[in-house]
Structures are given as structure tokens and as C-alpha cells.
């Protein structure tokens, strides 16, 4: 369709200069040609009108197309991002990714829109004009385009530099975006510590570096346009001198000379535009290479090649010799962990700060790739379980409660699509959130702000609990779920949870032993290893780390009671 319009536009683009030539010829030798010059004038006007109409369509079609391509790439980018694992997001900065979506994508769109449009236009005008010029005088045509190869060489040089500098500028822009993103998210810290001046200072540095990279880009941009303009004008000059001599010598009619000059004039603007296009191309290419980095990113966690899909997940979890280390650091965070969690049982995990508790439960949900050792769910290797099946079976309360800037109800219903109001309410009452929601002005429809910023710490945490509960999962994973709630609320939640647990497999991470009430088995982790494991009484009898922890928490009570 678009191509058709383009062919039509091309036709007219050829027609008008052709008519112009005929007109000039008829002026030059009146009476010889069949038609009067005025007739040609009229024909040109008619052709121009038709050309205009078609031009609207061809331009609209092409540019609309560019928007559609942009849309597609954006869809692909987003889809790719949703499929990448946490390891990827840890390595990238949010601002950088945002910048790719916003700025790099724009550059690519410009390339496929205006870039392509102008390349086509330029090509058409060039071929039309050169064809007509050739018919008048091949020699003059060759002479007229002498400056072009020189120009192309210069431009080639500039282009390569342009690509590099463009990429650099885009990277600096991403850095700038990250700086803003971070500063804005950390507004509370910046204010509380009076770091405004320092923040402005470091922003100024980043901003200046971006400016400098843009300046270097600007030099090239500045160079390109005059080079192009000079090329066109030089051609005119050559034609004037050589062609003039030919006219005087009688080997070229005056009419042809004039027409020739006319065609050459037609080339001036497209040639100038070409400088701009080259700039677009280089910027677009640099940006596309940045987009490709995302589009071609390999997810460490991917769908299994030969999936095994069980009817129903019962919730048995087994770790065999599981080891893990984060890409960034060489030291293993988990080393050879073996553990059997039978379906329907409850496991408690305790251990000092940074011992790997969160890492362990993240692996069970396969948020990071499981590579060292084996992790079995109901006896099936987790790497062969479709991700959807696995995650549908797991309800997860992360240690940090991330909420979306939507309503409370939507945040809870995030746990299960189509959860009814009744289900949302019963989940939130299990999480002791009801009372709080009742005090909100719009109840469940209250918006919670970015990351839940307008809720209190405990309210956020309880919303995250409700979100996991509404899912009705076979395996419930709670990562320090009660760290931000008071004793009374904690007591309430634990009581209602013990009713909810039923046949589910439950894994709770906690620093307070109180939250581990009712666990069949407790694991004490230290530096990524299980150092103690067993039931509460067994561990007390062992008189090791767990017993010490218990004593410590006991001791406090006694000290209080004195």
C-alpha cells in the first residue's frame, strides 16, 4: 500500500521536472513543439496538485508505519523485560532501561520514519534529475557530479565518528536518567540528611558530561550540512563554467543549458537533507544497538525445553546439594544445601543477617537460575517445570513489600486474577489489614502511591501478605513477613495463618522465633550452610546456635520481668 503510493509519488516526481524541461524547450523554440509553454505551465500545476494529494498519503503511510514499528519494538522490549530474571535487573539500572525505552526508541523511530522517507525521496529525485540531465548532456552530468564522490568520502569519515559519538551520548543520557531516577526515589533520605546541595553537585557533573558528549556530536552535525551544501553549489559552478563554454561554442543549446541548471537546482535541497539523514541513520543505528542489547539479552531463568507438567502440585520441595553465588561476587552465598520439605509441612529458617535466607527462598521460586545442585518440586526438577506452573503453586511474601501505585484492592487482587471483593476482604482480614483499610477514606479503592509510599510500613507488609494469601497456593513462602508489625498484630496474624496453613507447605524466614511457632522443622543457616536442623525441642537439646538464640530471646523476657 505504502509502496504503491510511493511509486505513484515517484511518477509525479519524474513528471514535473519533465514537464519543466518540455516547457523550457518550448520557450526556447516557440512553435516547434506541439504545445504552447503556457499549456505546460498549466500541466505542471495540475500535476503538482495530484502529486500533493498522493504525497499526503505516501507520507502518512510511511510515518504511520514508523509509529507502528516503534510500537512493535516497544512491545517486544517490554515483553523481553518481563521475561528476564532478577540477575539481569540487578546488573542494569532502572534509569538506563527507561532511557532505552524513551530516548533510544525515539531515535530508531526517526530512522525508520523520516530517515526512510527522505532516503526514498532523495533517491527518486536524484534518479529523475540525473536521468533528465543525462539526456541533455552526459558529459556535463558527469562533470556536475564530480564533487559527489569527494563528498561521500568526507561523509563516510564523519559518519563513523558520528556513530561512536552518538552511542556515547546515549550512554551519558542513560546515566543522567539514572541519576534523576535515583534522586527522586530517595527524596526522603536526601532531605533527612540535607544532601540537597551534594545531590545538585553530582547531578551537575553528570549533566555536564552529557552536555560535553552532545557538543562533540554537534560539531559533526555542524560539519555535515555545509559539506552537503557546498557539494551542490560546486556542481552548479562547474556546469556554469563548462556548460557556458559549450553554449558559446555552440555544442549546447541555450535551452538545454537552462534546463540543465534547473535540474541541478533540484538536487541542492535533497543533498543538504542527506547530511541530516546521515545524522539520523547514525543516531538510529547507535540506539538500535542499545535496544538490541535488551532484545537479545539471555534470561538465566527460561522456560524448560522439555517441560514436565504435573496434574497438580502437592508442595513437596527437596534441595539436593544446592549451591548458588551471585554473578557479581565470587564467594558462594549458598553451599551444598540439602533439605527435604514434605508436602504439607512447615519449615522455619533462621540465621544471622546476610546468611542467605532470602537467596534460598528466591531460588525455590526460581527468581534466579538454579544451576549448582538440584531443586525438586514434587520430585520434578524445577528446571523442567514450566515457570507458570511453578509460580502458580507458590505464594510469596518478599522481605521488602513492593506495591504498585494502584488501589489497595488491586494490589491484593494482584495475587490472583479475577479475585472477587469477598476474597480480597477475607485475605485482608487474614492479614489483619481490615481495620486499617476501614479507616482509609476510600477503603479498598484507596490508591497507595508509588511502591506503596502512602501506607505505613506495617500496612505495606500486611498488604503483601494478603496478596500472597489470596492466591491460595500450595506452597507459601514468607520472608520475614512480620518484621514491621507490632506484637498484637503479629499475634493476630499468626493465629489466623495457622488456620489458613491447612495442607499447604509453608516456608517461613524470620529473625524472631515467635513467628516460627508450629514449624515441623527449623533450619539454622550460617554463611550459606545449614549448621543445625531439626524440631524445636531437638534443637534445644542440641544446645547449639539455635538454643543460644532461644536463650537470648528468653533472657530478654526475664530481664524485662525483673
Amino acid at each position, binding site marked *: 500500500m505504502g509502496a504503491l503510493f510511493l511509486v505513484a509519488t515517484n511518477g509525479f516526481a519524474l513528471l514535473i521536472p519533465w514537464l519543466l524541461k518540455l516547457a523550457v524547450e518550448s520557450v526556447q523554440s516557440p512553435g516547434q513543439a506541439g504545445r504552447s509553454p503556457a499549456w*505546460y505551465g498549466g500541466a505542471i500545476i495540475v500535476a503538482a496538485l495530484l502529486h500533493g494529494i498522493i504525497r499526503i498519503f505516501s507520507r502518512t503511510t510511511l510515518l504511520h508505519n514508523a509509529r507502528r514499528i516503534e510500537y512493535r519494538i516497544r512491545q517486544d522490549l517490554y515483553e523481553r523485560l518481563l521475561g528476564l530474571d532478577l540477575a539481569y535487573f540487578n546488573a542494569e539500572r532502572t534509569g538506563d532501561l527507561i532511557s532505552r525505552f524513551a530516548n533510544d526508541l525515539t531515535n530508531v523511530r526517526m530512522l525508520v520514519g523520516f530517515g526512510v522517507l527522505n532516503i526514498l525521496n532523495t533517491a527518486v529525485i536524484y534518479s529523475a534529475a540525473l536521468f533528465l540531465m543525462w539526456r541533455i548532456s552526459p558529459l556535463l552530468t558527469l562533470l556536475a557530479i564530480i564533487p559527489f564522490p569527494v563528498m561521500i568520502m568526507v561523509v563516510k569519515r564523519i559518519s563513523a565518528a558520528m556513530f561512536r559519538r552518538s552511542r556515547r551520548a546515549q550512554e551519558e543520557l542513560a546515566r543522567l536518567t539514572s541519576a534523576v531516577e535515583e534522586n527522586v526515589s530517595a527524596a526522603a533520605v536526601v532531605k533527612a540528611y540535607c544532601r540537597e546541595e551534594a545531590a545538585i553537585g553530582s547531578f551537575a557533573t553528570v549533566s555536564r558530561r552529557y552536555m560535553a558528549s552532545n557538543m562533540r556530536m554537534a560539531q559533526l552535525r555542524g560539519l555535515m550540512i555545509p559539506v552537503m551544501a557546498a557539494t551542490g553549489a560546486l556542481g552548479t559552478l562547474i556546469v556554469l563554467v563548462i556548460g557556458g563554454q559549450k553554449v558559446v561554442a555552440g555544442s549546447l543549446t541555450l535551452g538545454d543549458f537552462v534546463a540543465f541548471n534547473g535540474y541541478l537546482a533540484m538536487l541542492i535541497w535533497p543533498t543538504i537533507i542527506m547530511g541530516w539523514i546521515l545524522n539520523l541513520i547514525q543516531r538510529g543505528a547507535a540506539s538500535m544497538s542499545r535496544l538490541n542489547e535488551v532484545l537479545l539479552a539471555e534470561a538465566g531463568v527460561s522456560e524448560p525445553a522439555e517441560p514436565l507438567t504435573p496434574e497438580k502440585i502437592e508442595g513437596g520441595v527437596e534441595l539436593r546439594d544446592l549451591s548458588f553465588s551471585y554473578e557479581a561476587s565470587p564467594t558462594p552465598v549458598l553451599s551444598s544445601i540439602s533439605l527435604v520439605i514434605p508436602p504439607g509441612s512447615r519449615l522455619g529458617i533462621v540465621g544471622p543477617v546476610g546468611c542467605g535466607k532470602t537467596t534460598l527462598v528466591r531460588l525455590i521460586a526460581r527468581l534466579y537460575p538454579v544451576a549448582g545442585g538440584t531443586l525438586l518440586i514434587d520430585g520434578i526438577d524445577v528446571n523442567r517445570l514450566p515457570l507458570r506452573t511453578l509460580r502458580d503453586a507458590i505464594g510469596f511474601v518478599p522481605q521488602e513489600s513492593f506495591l504498585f501505585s494502584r488501589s489497595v484492592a488491586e494490589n491484593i487482587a494482584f495475587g490472583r486474577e479475577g479475585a472477587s471483593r469477598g476474597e480480597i476482604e477475607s485475605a485482608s482480614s487474614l492479614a489483619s489489614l481490615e481495620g486499617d483499610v476501614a479507616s482509609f477514606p476510600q477503603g479498598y479503592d484507596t490508591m497507595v502511591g508509588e511502591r506503596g509510599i502512602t501506607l505505613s510500613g506495617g500496612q505495606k507488609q500486611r498488604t503483601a501478605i494478603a496478596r500472597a494469601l489470596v492466591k491460595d497456593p500450595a506452597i507459601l513462602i514468607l520472608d520475614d513477613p512480620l518484621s514491621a508489625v507490632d506484637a498484637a498484630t503479629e499475634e493476630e496474624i499468626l493465629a489466623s495463618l495457622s488456620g489458613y496453613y491447612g495442607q499447604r507447605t509453608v516456608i517461613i524466614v524470620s529473625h524472631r522465633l515467635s513467628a516460627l511457632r508450629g514449624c515441623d522443622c527449623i533450619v539454622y543457616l550460617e554463611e550459606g550452610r545449614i549448621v543445625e536442623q531439626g524440631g524445636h525441642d531437638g534443637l*534445644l537439646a542440641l544446645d547449639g546456635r539455635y538454643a543460644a538464640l532461644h536463650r537470648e530471646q528468653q533472657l530478654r523476657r526475664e530481664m524485662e520481668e525483673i
Partner: protein
Amino acid sequence: MHFQGIYADEIVGKAYDRRLLWRFAGYLRPYLWLVGVVLCILPLTTAAKLAQPWLIKQAIDNHIVTGDLAGLPAIAAYFLLLILGESLLSFLEVWLLQYMGQRVMQDIRLELFSHVQRLSASFFDRTPSGSLVTRLTSDVEVLGEMFAAGIITVVGDFLLLAGIVGVMLWMNLQLSLVTFTVLPLLFWITFTFRRRMRGAFRQVRARLANLNTFISESISGVAVVQLFNRQRQEMEEFTRLNGSYRDANMPVITWDAALYAAVETLSSVAVGLLIWYGSGEILAGSLTFGALVAFIQYIEKFFAPIRDLSAKYSVMQGAMAALERLFNLLDCNEVLAEGGGERQIPPGPPLSRGEELPFIRFHDVWFAYNNDDYVLKGFGLEIRRGETIALVGESGGGKTTVTRLLSRLYDVSRGGIELDGSDLKTMPLQGLRRRIGIVLQDPYLFTGTVEENICLGDESVRPRVRGAAALVGAERFIEKLPAGYGEEVRERGSNFSVGERQLISFARAVAFDPEILVLDEATASVDSESERLIQEGLKGLMAGRTTLVVAHRLSTIRDADRIVVIHRGEKVEEGSHDELMAWGGVYYRLHQLQFREAGSGPGQSGR
């Protein structure tokens, strides 16, 4: 309370370009000399452009037609000179413009950023970070486009247009007039189209902001999306936003294409008219051949900038929409008034024991984050210098809010807070906040090193970094890191465990050595062993220092001089541990609950 319209930045205003432009012109002031230089260059390049066709006419009429070749080399030399001059000047022009554009962008960016630093916490509660990011990057970028496209060269374009019109009129009045009959039509079309485009442009920007906000939130919450298998639903929402952005662009493109085509068509029509009329003139002998050629060239040169102008027009439209949004942000005045001016403090109740003035005094404080949803209702508290006060109470009761009011992240709605006998509002903000060191409930780490995260780039704090880390027990894990204090911290501290992050942010508060220490659940994610170490370490630190501790673990506050129980925004109990236990109220109940659990331990009340 809570949120009102996430996308408050959808701009629906009148078309006040002139005011916007005028205000924008203010940013050019420091670069007036550059504007001057460019404005000097412009007539020169214009003249160079104008002279070229005229030289050709001379060559044809005086030399080629007459066969007098002697003068031709001279004309060629002039021509060459003109080309070289024009290239040089236009390089200079483009470069200067870009230089200026970059400087102006830099100035605006810095001004915006500094302005945003001054905005109050409530502004950040409401405004999605994605939209602020868009404002400071893409919107400013659009302004840069405006320079790159050359708004100032527009002046040059008009100069060129006027010049061409002048020369053409001078060369041949009648022929010019015939050619120019297309002009009124041209003006009319341009004017109508651009009016239509403006509204469409605004919609485009608003939808783009929504899209970007959504993307930035998705990136932050990707783990939650994956955990809950919500990829499909998020994708659907994204598709909707992405599609609506694409669709908003379509009419803009159509109008733009129509405008472009109209200009192009009219330029061909002008050529047609020229030939139609000019051929008669030549036949009649009243027009030379050279003049006709020059005319055709002039028309080419005449319509080139106009065609270009329509492209520039899109850029200008975008820039206007961006300017509007930038100025709106700059005009946003959600700033807490700086102290300095005296404010009448409502007299409080007479001091009970007639002793020294309280160091910190909350007097009948009412506070609502939004409208009338009071979160604190008549909260009162007096703290003497050096005291340790514990705030306890049900989650959502308002404890964090009390700490925020103390560091004046928000202003009280009614009542007042005094520090050292003067109202907070009368003090300079920075001075006040420097006296307070706060461990926020949600620890936040910046990208940078561990050390930078503790001292936040403050050189006077740097020497205390290690001491502070040791005091809170963060030293143990920091020293195990491959690069120790120089270890790189990723965005939001994602490469540290939550407990580690909390310890680092605790160390930060300690390192700043504040007069008043505020600990908001500062050890909530830390194991008991570390907690005990911190408490021992803090004992020395807290001596003589006023401390406000918020804690759910009652064990962590046993050393407090006084315990304040907050329930639904009101103070319901106050006193020492023993007093409150004897009183048998909320505190007593909480205490019983908590220590029954701790005592019972996991095994006993299970299945």
C-alpha cells in the same frame, strides 16, 4: 488521604505560546552575545544564498548569451568564494546554535533539578518518579531538538524569504506578483493546520508520560510480576497504553503530512505559474532567459525553508508542550516555608513542674497527609534534653508520622512543634535537619560505594564512617566484602541483604553524629545477636543525646526513660516501663503477648 490522580501532569491549557516563548527567552540572556553573533552571521549567509542565482543570471545574460567568455572566470571565482563563505558561516552558525542549545538545556536541567530538591515530601508522595524523570530528560531533550532544528535560524529563514521576495520583485514585478498569488493560500493553510496540531500534541505528551510511568514502575516491580504470574495482564495494560500513545500520534502525522504536501504542491504550482506567465513574457521580449532561470532557482530557494519550516513546526509544537510542562513544574510551589520570619506560637499549658523548658515539645499536634483525614489527633509530647523516648503502638498508628513531623518533612496542620523553645517553622530547614539523624523505616541505599552510602559524600563525616559501622555491627560483613568499604552498591542496595542494608543506613545516622537520634524500626530486619550488639554499642552513644526510638520489639526499648503508646494518632499512655506495666493498659497487654510468644518458642504451641 492518599493519592489524587497519578497523572496529574496531563496538561490542558490555552495556547499561550507567546508567554512561554517570552519566558524561555529569559534563558537565552546569558548567551545574548552568541545570539548576537548568530544574528550577524545570518544576513551574511542569506546574502551569499541570494547572490548565487543572481550571479548565474549575470553569467547567462551577459556572457553566455552574448558569447563574451572573458568575464566568466571572474564570475566563477566569485561564485566559488560565495560557496566557501557560505559553508564556513553555516558551519559556524550550526555549531554556535547547538552550543547555545546545549548550554541552555544544561541551565534548565540544573534549575529544574535544584527546584525539585526543594519540593516537599508531599509532592513526592503524589508524583510518580517516572514523570519527573521524563520532565528532566525527554522534555529537556525536546528543547534541545528545538535548537538543533534551529529556532534561531527561523529568523534567518524569514530574512532569506524577505530577501528573495525583494530580489524577485526588483527583477520583475509582474512575474513576481503572479508567482506570489500562492502565498495567501500558503499562510492560511499553515495557520489552520498548526492550530489543529497543538491539541493533538498535548495529548501525545500526556500519553507518553503515562506510558513511561508505567514502564518505570514495571521495571522496579518485575520480581512481583513474575512471582504472581501476572506477565500477561501487565502486558495487556502495557499494550493498551502503548497503543493509545501510538494512536495519539497518528493525527499529528496526518496533519503534518498534509501541511508538508501543501507547501510542496504550492511550490510546484508557483513554478507552473511562472512558466505559464513567464513564457509569454519571454516571447514578448520583456524577460530575459537568465532571469527566468534565476526565478526558478529563487523559487526553489524560497520554498525550501518553508517546507523546512513545516518540519520545524512539529519540533516547535513539541517544544511548546514540553516548555509548558517544564514551567509548570518550576511553578509548582509545594515548598515548606523556610524559617526566619517570626511566627506566633500558641501558648501551651503552663509547665507542670516549673523546671527547665522541654527540649522538644509537640503541642496538640494535628496532622493529615490529605485534607481532613487526620493521622495525628491532638498529639502532645515533651522531651527533655538527653532523654530516650520510645514510641510504641499498633501498626499504622502514626509513629513514623511523628518522626517525619519532627524533621519537618511535613508541616503540622494544627498545633505546633518546638525545639529548644522555638517553633520548627521559624528555623532554617537545613539547620533543623542537621541536628537530627534519622534511620528511616525503609532503608535506602544509593549506587556508589559502601563508604559513600554511610557518609553521603559529606567530607566532615567521612572520618567517622568506620567507627559508626563498627558501632552498629556492620563492620563484620563489610570487612568480608572483596572491596570492603569500597564495595560497589547497586541501585537501592540490591546486592545486599535487607538486614545489611538496614545496618548500613543505621551506621549512616550514627556517623552524622546528630544531636537528636531518631530510630524508626531501625533493627526490625536484624537478628537478635546483632540487635544486642547494637544496643550495647548505642548505650554510650545515647548518653547525653536525645533519642526517639520507634519499635515493635519491646525488648529493644527497655532502656527508654519513657514509653509513649500511640493508638490511632493519639497518645494513650505515657510513662516508664514499670509505670505502664503497673497501669495495666495497652502496653501491658502488648508486653504480655510478646513475651508469652518469645517464651513459648516455636515447638510448643504448634501441632
